[in-house]
């Protein structure tokens, strides 16, 4: 009875804790501007099903793709097991779902299969990250925490799966010994290899092993749940909404700022009286983005979804040729800045802490280096669009601060005066016909 109460308290507590973290993240995302979402729900759901649920973009890197698929399936399937653990924990039952008979045996056997596969995959991942020199795991933005974060989660998973197998091994021995409470249920093709570890254990000792592993497993899972919101592994949740809100327009199509459209129309309309311009209700917003509050909520959602896998950076022509720009760093900076500003807002009630995304996090040099080739957004396994953020930051520098490379100033003046980025006369536009 005592253990049931303890279990229920721990379980409810960690679920509440998890939801309060979710709320903070939601508030942080809502620092951004509202966006109107265009496109059909059906089409969006399809993209979500293909990219997030079906891992549609993971297999451009086959090795990583396969390993990830194993961990992902393992995660999904072992979660079903959680259902039973929770019921048992609250009700004090043991293997409550075992009434399913043969199907239950099959379920437990496949959980074990995945537990082993996940352990192997995680070990390979650890080797890839820490021993093999795969460049994208060693970029400058992969500093202490991002590295530790990735390793922690892998070790976490290995421990959880080991606890699960240990629990099963002890349980099946108890079943063989006809111990009270331990109903005969389940098939244990993998954990039975652990039996020799417990040779000579009596029922009491086996129960201690089984119970410890059970508690370790469930508390581990609950800790894992609450670790997610502070980790890049939050993508296992965010990938779904994020892919739902994917950009549907062609990749290279940039949005046309509406505020600018209004002004340009006024400027071009000879009959317009600027003083009569209908006052719009909106704040006279900023052009482009200086801080996360100028970005929109989908862009901020993108940042929370980033898995820091670095695929984007590994295909970025600027990064490959040694420039500072790294699209992954852009996404990490946006997330860090959001967290910082959100915290400031919760503590002080306003969103001015004297800092900004530009310069405090992202330098001009990075912003100006992007060729807008969209290699990053093409390869991103969770459909993140770093280019839209880079362009918004550029817009701010160029339109609000007139901070831009000298050659661009010349180019823009040429367009303004001659209708071409080079200094040629409009009248020479047809010269090619007779050359």
């Amino acid at each position, binding site marked *: 009875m005592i253990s049931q109460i303890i279990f229920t308290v721990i379980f409810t507590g960690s679920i509440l804790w998890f939801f309060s973290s979710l709320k903070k993240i939601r508030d942080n995302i809502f620092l951004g501007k509202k966006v109107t979402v265009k496109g059909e729900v059906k089409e969006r759901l399809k993209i979500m099903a293909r990219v997030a649920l079906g891992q549609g973009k993971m297999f451009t890197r086959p090795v990583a793709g396969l390993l990830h698929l194993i961990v992902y399936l393992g995660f999904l399937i072992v979660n079903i097991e959680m259902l039973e653990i929770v019921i048992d924990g609250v009700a004090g039952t043991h293997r409550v779902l075992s009434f399913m008979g043969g199907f239950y045996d099959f379920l437990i056997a496949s959980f074990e299969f995945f537990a082993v596969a996940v352990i192997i995959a995680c070990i390979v991942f650890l080797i890839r990250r820490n021993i093999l020199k795969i460049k994208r795991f060693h970029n400058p933005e992969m500093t202490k925490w991002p590295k530790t974060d990735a390793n922690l989660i892998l070790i976490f998973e290995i421990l959880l799966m080991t606890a699960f197998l240990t629990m099963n091994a002890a349980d099946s021995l108890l079943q063989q010994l006809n111990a009270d409470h331990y109903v005969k249920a389940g098939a244990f093709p993998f954990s039975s290899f652990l039996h020799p570890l417990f040779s000579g254990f009596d029922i009491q000792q086996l129960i201690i092993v089984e119970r410890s592993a059970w508690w370790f497993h469930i508390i581990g899972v609950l800790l894992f749940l609450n670790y997610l919101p502070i980790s890049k592994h939050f993508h296992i949740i965010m990938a779904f909404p994020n892919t739902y809100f994917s950009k549907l327009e062609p990749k*290279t199509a940039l949005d046309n700022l509406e505020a600018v459209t209004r002004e340009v129309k006024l400027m071009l309309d000879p009959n317009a009286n600027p003083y009569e311009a209908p006052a719009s209700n909106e704040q006279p917003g900023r052009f482009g983005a200086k801080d996360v509050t100028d970005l929109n909520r989908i862009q901020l959602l993108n940042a929370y979804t980033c898995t820091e896998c670095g695929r984007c950076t590994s295909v970025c022509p600027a990064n490959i*040729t040694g420039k500072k720009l790294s699209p992954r760093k852009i996404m990490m900076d946006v997330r860090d800045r959001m967290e910082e500003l959100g915290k400031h807002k919760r503590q002080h009630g306003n969103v001015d802490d004297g800092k900004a995304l530009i310069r405090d996090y992202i330098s001009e040099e990075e912003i100006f*280096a992007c060729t807008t080739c*969209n290699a990053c957004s093409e390869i991103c396994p969770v459909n993140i669009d770093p280019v839209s953020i880079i362009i918004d930051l550029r817009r701010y520098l160029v339109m609000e601060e007139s901070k831009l490379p000298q050659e661009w100033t010349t180019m823009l003046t040429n367009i303004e005066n001659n209708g071409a980025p*080079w200094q040629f006369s409009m009248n020479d536009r*047809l010269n090619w016909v007779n050359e």
Partner: protein
Amino acid sequence: MSETLKVKTMAQFAAEGKQPEILFWVGCAGSFDDRSKKITRAFAKILNHLEIDFAVLGTEESCTGDPAKRSGNEFLFQMQAMVNIQTLNGYGIKKIVTTCPHCFNTLKNEYPSLGGNYEVLHHSQFLQQLIDEGKLKVQGGSFKGKKITFHDPCYLGRGNNIYEAPRELIKQLDADLVEMKRCRSESFCCGAGGAQVFKEAEPGNKEVNIERTEEALELKPDVIATGCPFCMIMLTDGVKLKNQNENVKVIDLAELIAAGL
């Protein structure tokens, strides 16, 4: 090239009270850059050869605003766009063909929400259609059996999913099409986009166009084919810097086709 081209402007069509089948949007590079002008002439030659009824805007054409937009000057972009849309709509233009993927992308994707709605085609798509319809017969000529690799322009491929038309055109020449390691949706940028072609690159350890040129040269091709005047500029520079301009030519799709007419 010295053959005379027959090119009429929209203003001339309007004066005759006629409407051309298509508007050929030449673009700034196609109008002013010496190398790109050859692409423009080659495409006009094909249109003349097939007696396609086309017009250009001539002195009424202005920059689409692509470099202004990508460099962050949305104001200038929209000014350019609005003026161009006024011109295009004034002439009642329905269908536009262009040899520049940047113009293509802007006209097709960014003009509609500003009031400019047209059917926009890249010349590779347009030529492909003509071949499919049996109107254009292509001969390999001097390119027959030559090793050609195609560099996917970002604004054509990743941007607008046009991967097949350029390759189909090259196959028509009975050429040996070889692919680079990074091709199609994983193609590597030439380094020009995002208005980068108009400024020095940020500090790094290599120029983007050199990286791409090296990748192409690894295949030991006779020809690097492109479908973008800016890729043309970047790759031609790259090939020159690698001292390979005697052995490897950078040629636009329109030129490949025009050469066999």
